[in-house]
């Protein structure tokens, strides 16, 4: 969206030099936050936004279940979830919607009001293509294919965060930099903390930095620029505390590890403000099941990870807003293989960040045949940009959003912060 540029941000470079000195003293992590706060670089009250992408189109109707709806049960004879009082039934949220029992570890957060859901949320673009719909969600410009950068990167650029001095201001726990974070602002991406280090000594690190920083290859030079500094910080983090997610209560498996590693960076207070997790495995065309299929296992891992993450955040939980997203929902009608095909509206889960939880937000469009999108799928009643827009303004204080979601006019707020 913006004109491409790269400004050598002098203040940021100064910070990097400074951080090198501080880290050499290794005092930084013995005195959590002290130096950072003293330097005015990060403070305990900094708000943090974490987003998780459920790649593959998660089935919102089996996550936040409209268990009172007879159309729901008729359309899902083998994979529909029972009402709260029946075997394998949902956990009642508000008498209308129920939580998939695999997400039971999130129930305490619902009860204390730090967990909310937005139902029938999605993109105004009707595509049922995974990659096209993911692009829509990540560029923030549904239907416009020429947008190169991601809306979350533009949000950073449009706010005071662009002046943030930490090379770990925005981090994706992912081997590839997701589209949502591509753009002018330099984002650090790595699949795990452990591998993010230099083999060899300072010579290799210096050569690497100078070869890439000085390269006329614009694409390669931009990304190599701050690697050395971010590696130093990450390796300091790695030197303290347990490296085993299960010790900190996270579930076994790659998803738990992603959450755990992100939490480690946050807890080290090194200036992380935006975090992103990429999680695949939601495309359940076959054997999605109810409480016995593939979705059940995936949701259990997700719910237990989120619960452990907030436990881990401790008194910072209120500063950390966590949101899920997915490219579209799935068909209301189950298909021939105890699965679902590509649909339209889905569900977003929101946690922490001072939201008014314990409520399913958004207007429910209903599931009778005439209420369905193209006669088959849950309608979108809340544009995904509406939710992000409210998060950006209420949580991160980013009010000027014209360049973040061009062409989108925010509607009456959902009331998440009312």
């Amino acid at each position, binding site marked *: 969206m913006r004109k491409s540029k790269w400004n050598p941000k002098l203040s940021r470079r100064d910070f990097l030099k400074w951080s090198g000195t501080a880290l050499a003293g290794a005092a930084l992590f013995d005195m959590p936050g002290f130096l950072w706060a003293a330097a005015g670089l990060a403070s305990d009250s900094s708000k943090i936004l974490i987003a998780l992408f459920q790649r593959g189109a998660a089935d919102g109707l089996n996550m936040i279940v409209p268990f009172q709806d007879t159309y729901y049960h008729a359309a899902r*004879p083998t994979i*529909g979830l029972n009402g709260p009082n029946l075997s394998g039934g949902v956990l009642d949220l508000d008498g209308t919607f129920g939580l998939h029992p695999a997400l039971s570890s999130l129930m305490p957060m619902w009860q204390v009001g730090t967990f909310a859901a937005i139902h029938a949320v999605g993109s105004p673009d009707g595509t049922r293509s995974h990659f096209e719909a993911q692009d829509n969600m990540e560029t923030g410009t549904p239907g416009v294919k020429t947008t190169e950068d991601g809306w979350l990167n533009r949000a950073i650029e449009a706010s005071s965060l662009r002046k943030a001095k930490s090379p770990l201001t925005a981090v994706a726990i992912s081997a590839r930099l997701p589209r949502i974070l591509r753009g002018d602002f330099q984002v650090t991406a790595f699949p795990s903390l452990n591998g993010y280090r230099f083999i060899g000594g300072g010579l290799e690190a210096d050569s690497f930095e100078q070869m890439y920083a*000085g*390269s006329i290859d614009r694409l*390669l030079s931009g990304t190599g620029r*701050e690697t050395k500094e971010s590696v130093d910080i990450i390796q300091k983090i790695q030197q303290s505390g347990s490296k085993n997610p299960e010790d900190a209560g996270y579930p076994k498996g790659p998803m738990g590890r992603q959450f755990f590693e992100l939490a480690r960076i946050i807890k080290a207070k090194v200036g992380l403000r935006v975090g992103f997790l990429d999680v695949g495995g939601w495309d359940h065309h*076959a054997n999605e099941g109810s409480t016995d299929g593939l979705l059940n296992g995936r949701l259990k891992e997700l719910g237990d990870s989120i619960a452990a993450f907030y436990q881990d955040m401790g008194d910072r939980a209120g500063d950390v807003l966590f949101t899920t997203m997915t490219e579209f929902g799935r068909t209301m009608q189950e298909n*021939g293989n105890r699965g679902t095909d590509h649909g339209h509206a889905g569900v977003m889960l929101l946690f922490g960040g001072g939201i008014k939880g314990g409520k399913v937000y958004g207007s429910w469009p209903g599931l009778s045949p005439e209420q369905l999108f193209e006669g*088959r799928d849950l309608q979108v009643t809340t544009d995904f940009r509406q939710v992000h827009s409210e998060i950006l303004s209420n949580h991160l204080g980013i009010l000027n959003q014209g360049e973040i979601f061009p062409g989108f006019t925010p509607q009456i707020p959902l009331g998440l912060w009312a």
Partner: protein
Amino acid sequence: MRNIFLILITLGFSLCIPALAPAAPQTLTYTQKVLQVLNRLSFGPEPGDIAHVRHIGIKAYIEEQLHPETIDDSRCDNDLKTIPTLSMTAYQLYQAYPPAKAAALGEKPNPDQVKAANQHIREILDQLTQAKLTRILESQRQLQEVMVDFWFNHFNVTFQKNRDKWFITPYEQDAIRPYALGKFRDLLGAVAHSPAMLEYLDNVNSSVDARYVPADEMDEYPQMEKMMDQPMSADGKPKKSMGLNENYARELMELHTLGVDSGYTQDDVIQVARALTGWSIQGQGKPGQNDVDPDQVFQFKFRERMHDLGPATILGQAFDGSQGEAEGEAVLDLLAKNPATAHFIATKLCRRFICDDPPPALVNRVAQRFLDSGGDIRETLRAIFYSKEFMSPTYYRAKVKTPLEFMASALRVTNAHVTDTQKIAQILNLMGEPLYLCEPPTGYPDDAKAWVNSSALLDRMNFSLILLGNKPRSPARVNLTQIDPSLSSGDDGKKILRGFFQALLDGQVSANTQKVLFSKLDDPEISHAVLDDRQKSFEASQLGALVLGSPDFQRR
């Protein structure tokens, strides 16, 4: 003749005017052309390749690669013979690497049995990886390997999906490899009949669906009645169901042929899915009750009873529903010859062989050749390789290597002897491109923006240090002096560096990389000079690794 010459001179001259600005050169040098060809048609030059192309000429090299059957590849073939699973059928693989439930003899397998069985099955993946790397590193038929990689990624399946762990080896061997340079329609057909794809995109159990059958025709499908009275699970739900699965039909159009937004609708997805109901996989049967010839087990099977017999209009063409399996074939015909398919395939091929955003004029020409040749892949590639864009300085080194391309080119250029393919698989996994394990049907992206980030570049530098240092963790052994005697440790750092610039980058090194690396020669960390002993000693492997990790080696 003379006039033409004059025009060319004038043209050249006029083109020189803007060249007062530091513009790109107007043509590639011969060395650059040779490199361009090798970087595009192969997984990167290995020692001797440049001399070979210079010897036979660029055109002869291209033609040779387009006809792999004319290239002697006995060394690679012999090495492949040591990989037993490569020639096994899906059922042979299943029997040799059975699931835990088979070992438990009817009982529910315990966790230890499951773990042991999965570890054993993993050998199939290890051998598949070993075969792929053997071919990438040793085969003289490099373009064929590039195209097998391209098509496998285009028609992606993953080892992790259900029974694909047993289906994936014959998939690459029998459905992809024989057609990599052949006719697109043959390739499409082989994939559509492959158990691996039918399993991966869930067509295997897609069947006639009550939603699309008129009430008065229901009695044609007695099996639907049978579904109604079946055992229920604990929560009161039927354990089985039958009906349509749209997954394969959608991706067949979106990812395999027409491309997204090419005009097909949700109704087309449903109609194509209906046409393909019954395209399934032969199971093992039950001895004594339902005996199946072992040669047929885990092969394609058209299940007539699952097939939708109703009429349909697909992409504007009417079908009366009486054709059975032939209806699906006719749909594949329609898709293969659709101009949208030609455009989509041409775009992806140009992205692989020219640049991330290929010029539309080139894509159109290549798509036209695809259509005119009846979807002949070899002819389509020819249109790319002999295009003016192919040798244009604008697209010289325009591609950033994917993790696999980086890994392969580093191993090839150093003539590395691979000792542990599993380690290579692990490193590619960390780099985000695990082989045969790509989950989404889109396959891996083929553009730089997806792959370039700080950790990716760091991983490449680290791999270079491990590889050239012959570290215990290295998956391969490298003997630098075998490539060039000048690549040995010694006191003349500049000479060693220049040797690497030549050996690894054929002298195509940016000014900045030269400046940075030459300046490092004064650093005691690299010169190993100590105060009381001014004698400098440069370790060749360290210098070489910095060259492999440089920005210059990341492009092809």
